[in-house]
């Protein structure tokens, strides 16, 4: 895969430097059977340094996960080597089964079948809380 040119796929750009790996893991890109490139610490005029993820396949991504990790990221959809769509990213109000509550006293720690749900409790600080025990997401 040539990491510069994608024919049909998705480019997640302007990821804050250092957040690319976390995003890669939460999006479970390692499980994909297609070419994926995670490029760290790319020079950027606007940001100094940034991370970029390129996925060489026309897949649907969970934008909530991207919004949770870095609402400043941009998502570009490439079709036939042409940028066809720029998706706007926002902090999601609710996160379902993206992150796990780490509070050992939370009901989700003993009832595994419950959905892991977090709600945005403080948009300014990007703070999410577990809807069950109200513990902050770490």
């Amino acid at each position, binding site marked *: 895969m040539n990491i510069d040119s994608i024919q049909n796929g998705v480019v997640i750009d302007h990821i804050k430097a250092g957040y690319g790996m976390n995003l890669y893991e939460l999006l479970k890109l390692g499980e994909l059977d297609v070419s994926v490139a995670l490029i760290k610490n790319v020079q950027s005029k606007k940001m100094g340094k940034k991370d970029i993820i390129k996925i060489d396949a026309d897949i649907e991504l969970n934008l909530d996960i991207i919004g949770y990790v870095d609402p400043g990221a941009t998502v570009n959809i490439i079709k036939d080597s042409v940028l066809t769509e720029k998706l706007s990213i926002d902090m999601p109000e609710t996160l379902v089964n993206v992150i796990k509550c780490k*509070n050992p*006293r*939370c*009901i*989700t*720690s*003993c*009832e595994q*079948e*419950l959905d892991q749900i977090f709600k945005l409790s403080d948009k300014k600080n990007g703070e999410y809380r*577990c*809807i*069950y*025990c*109200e*513990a902050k997401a770490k």
Partner: protein
Amino acid sequence: MRSVIDIVDLTTEELDELIKTAVDIINNPNKYSEICRGKKLATLFFEPSTRTRMSFEAAMYELGGHVISMTDAGSSSAAKGESVADTAKTVSCYTDIIAMRHPKEGAAYVAAKAASIPVINAGDGGHCHPTQTLADLLTIYREKGGFDNLTVGLCGDLKFGRTVHSLINALSRYNGIKYVLISPEELKLPSYVKADSIKSKNIPYTQTTDLESAMPELDILYMTRVQRERFFNEEDYLRLKDSYILTPDKLKNAKADLSIMHPLPRVNEISAAIDDDPRACYFKQVLNGKYMRMALIIKLLKEAGTI
């Protein structure tokens, strides 16, 4: 279906309405003695809390209703691995309202989502215990005639003590409240509680480690227990547990109409010598808790169209 999991589930108007109902129950018990006739309360206690369970049961009996209990979690569905949601759905089939206690935080929320009848949280770990706050509110209302312009001292474990956090949330809705937060350094009120319920409303407060110097200005002194189960480290618990012990000599500069409160059970935070002092209100809180549970059961069953 309307349930009460946290004190914030109730508006200020609803708190006032519950207090009004409770006072009416106290004054006219006969008016309410058959109001829940034929209705059943399920008490689901996944961990023992005999006093809370008995309070709910007494409340339902005094409303003319019945009680079905699941008290022994060891031999119950929970021990067989049934989920809280399934238990709540099952119990919804043969009762009208649930009071639930569970060691895990958020368990009552899970039950309320699953149940087709109202659920009252009777304590979910260290998370919420709204009927304790209702008991506290009725006690303050009856002792002081209202909530306005009170200086409220909160003493002991202000960090882990959710009873204190809920009480602050409720009292901060009234006018002229002032808080005196008395605790060891390690057990200070968390900053998010201060931010959400005190600072955002411009409520005056002071923080101190010295109970005796704070005493003269207090209208209410709310004592709390330092709970062993909140500590990960036994040493810290042992070091902090006896930080504040209220004895008669510490009350010498207190107001004559101070109200001394405690959510009970106490260990040694309040010396038994104070029990006969007319300012001691903690056993009145127990009684008031029953009246507020009665008022809450009535409210939720009415909203559900059951009565």
